[in-house]
């Protein structure tokens, strides 16, 4: 590897370090020692076993959605509908958990997971078909479908799936224990879900590096017309890439209801889809960085929950940190962009 390649590879660290520096300044302005704040985030994330497991449990669906997004980004698609695909996965898994009773817990969970993946895939296919047949850009189709998914959740928890003791607008009744993915100790973390996520990541890696399908997606993402001339059928591949991503996002949704929560809640995804978009963009579409960055986000967001107890800061700091990160990614995320900025400056 020459210097340029090393630099390109390490570049994702730059916006993170920049954001950390900026946040430190911000904390000093609010009369908090940055190290205190970071330490309390750290202990909030990894202070004891249950906290660490929470970080893992949050990481899994994020990683699943991000893995799927690697595929759609490769194909040049902005699958912003990933959020809705996660929600649909949650809904489908919840539907099975509430209404279908299988003879064995394994079969029960398998059915829920498969239903969730199918639902996510269908939701993604809708956006894809809107794009290929209706010429609706996947961003607009995806946003509309996201809203529909939220409306559908609200309808279900306040209507047909409301708990017997009465609607609270907050969620369904808890699922029976055998409908959940077996969780580790008393935590929200299900080891099996981590296996799902890692397998998904490996499949994405192999699909993009080693298969003809992955190469077709890459070609489509870079130059659809040339790809068409070389024999790549864009409609089929666009739909397939979206469906693939939708299935993984749906699986992520299942993990949300079957291990993080134990019921279908109002904001079931909690923005994990959007966060996953951010993770993939921050990684510069580099699969090696995706799990690390996703883990970082998970730790920061979980760690800042207990922030208020230790320091006088609101737990929203976690959100502020991710927000500042976004800004720094937009500013410095692209090395070549930076070069361009410099160029313009010397011109003045």
């Amino acid at each position, binding site marked *: 590897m020459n210097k340029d390649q090393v630099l390109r590879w390490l570049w994702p660290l730059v916006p993170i370090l920049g954001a950390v520096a900026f946040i430190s300044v911000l904390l000093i302005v609010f009369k908090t020692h940055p190290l205190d704040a970071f330490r309390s985030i750290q202990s909030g994330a990894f202070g004891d076993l249950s906290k660490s497991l929470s970080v893992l449990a949050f990481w899994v669906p994020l990683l699943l959605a991000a893995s799927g997004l690697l595929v759609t980004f490769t194909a040049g698609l902005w699958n912003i509908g990933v959020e809705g695909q996660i929600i649909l996965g949650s809904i489908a898994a919840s539907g099975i958990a509430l209404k279908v009773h299988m003879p064995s817990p394994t079969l029960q969970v398998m059915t829920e997971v498969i239903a969730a993946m199918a639902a996510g895939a269908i939701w993604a296919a809708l956006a894809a078909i809107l794009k290929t047949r209706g010429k609706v850009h996947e961003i607009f189709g995806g946003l509309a479908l996201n809203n529909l998914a939220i409306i559908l959740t609200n309808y279900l928890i306040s209507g047909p799936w409301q708990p017997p003791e009465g609607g609270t607008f907050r969620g369904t009744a808890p699922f029976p224990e055998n409908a959940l993915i077996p969780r580790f100790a008393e935590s929200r973390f299900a080891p099996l879900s981590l296996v799902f996520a890692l397998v998904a990541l490996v499949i994405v890696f192999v699909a993009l590096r*080693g298969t003809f399908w992955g190469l077709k997606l890459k*070609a489509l993402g*870079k130059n659809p017309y040339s*790809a*068409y001339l070389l024999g790549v059928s864009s409609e089929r591949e666009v739909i397939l890439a979206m469906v693939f991503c939708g299935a993984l996002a749906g699986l992520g949704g299942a993990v949300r209801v079957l291990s993080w929560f134990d019921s279908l809640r109002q904001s079931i995804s909690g923005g994990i889809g959007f966060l996953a978009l951010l993770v993939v963009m921050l990684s510069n579409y580099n699969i090696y960085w995706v799990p690390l960055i996703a883990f970082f986000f998970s730790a920061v967001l979980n760690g800042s929950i207990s922030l208020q107890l230790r320091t006088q800061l609101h737990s929203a700091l976690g959100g502020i940190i991710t927000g500042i990160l976004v800004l720094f990614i937009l500013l410095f995320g692209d090395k070549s962009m930076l070069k361009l900025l410099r*160029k313009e400056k010397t011109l003045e």
Partner: protein
Amino acid sequence: MQIEIREIRKYFGAVKANDGISMVLEGGKIYGLLGENGAGKSTLMKILSGYQPADSGQILLDGKAVHFDSPAQALKCGIGMLYQEPLDFPPFKIIENYLLGRDRRLRLDYKTVEQELKQYTQKYNFHLDIHAYIDSLSLGERQQLELIRLLAGGAQVLILDEPTTGISGDQKEQLFDSMRKLAREEGKTLILVSHKLDEVQELCDYAFVLRGGKLVGGTEIPCPNEKLVEMMFAQIPPPATRPGVHLSGAALTLVNLSVETYRLAIENINLTIRSGEVFGLAGLEGSGQELFLKACAGLVQPSKGQIYLNGEDITSWSYHRRQAANIAYVAAGRLEAGLIHGLSLTEHIVLSLPKHSFFIDWKSARQLTADRIQKYQVVGSPETRADELSGGNQQRMLFGLLRNPLRLLLLEHPTRGLDVQSANWIWELLLRRREEGTAIVFMSADLDEIIERSDRIAVFSGGKMSGVVEARQTSVDELGHLIGGAL
């Protein structure tokens, strides 16, 4: 303005595009920059015009060292480059394009600018309707606009990269007249990058010759063509030979074919092209040849008529279905239509293969790519990205992607931008395909090429196809007459 280039070096990986080039150019003269593809002409000119930086070396303007980070900066210092593809905004009008180049911040001063534009067009005798939209203009007219934009930007040095490719004879004369005027009367320095020797002979005062990234010589013009060719190639290429091939049955049959687009319509074409035949399409750019090729390839749907391949009606077949039936189409735009920016040559080869397994066997794919690279004389390796190749190498790579065997091969400007030797080599490979029964239909702006390579020729003019002429019995004059619209 005097330009001095000192020891310019630019390497792309292992490829030494410019390997220590030094030259001095004086004001008031027209210089030719000659060299075969990959000799480093474009790279050197891109460095001089601020499009890309050199790895090392210096540029001195009137003895003062300068450094450019962008073409705009180079233009401020007085160096302007006219690219093969004009840098304009097709949905805009001429005057709006011009305004964009004359950045006056918030104020859009149409009146002053209109006068400026009129002055320039009159001065150089360009006939431009300044309220016309760019996409209604010919390449030659867009070039004229570009030239005016550069001059208005204060260019003292003008670099013209293959400026006569794709423009009409009249426009070429006009361009040459204005170039002479700029050099002789206004004392500007002009650099003509070309591989057309007769143009260099006609126009230039002095010619530099590059080969393999090095400056191999320079000579006062005029001089014998042989001298230039020898410098360019180190050997004189043999004249093209054309082995006779037995023509078999009809490969492509068109019956009353009509195609309409919002810009141009071609009407009622009846034609039979036989297997093994080479069929040339002549005409001004945008006269219907391209539309004709696209209709045969399945990229545009005909409004009327039928297309038959070996007797089978393929009118309603999609591009991909025709591709599977061994029809191939090579478009003129390399990185826009054919190659993919950012993908390696191996990845291109894998994509182009007719049969695929689910997992890619990268090892054998790389081997196959290395073979194709060698066969088509591409300067690059299997890992090279398509966008890293020089224009000529991209063109050769496009041919390396073609399947074997083919029933019908449709080509847009197959040797555009290639030097004589590469063009000969490409045609040799193409003509070999005739023995396997491939019918070749190609369009070209080079009438000599059309006459030399074709069996039969059709001329397009404003969407109408002339009668078909035998290549052996026609001449450049006759074709020129037909192109002018005398059907």
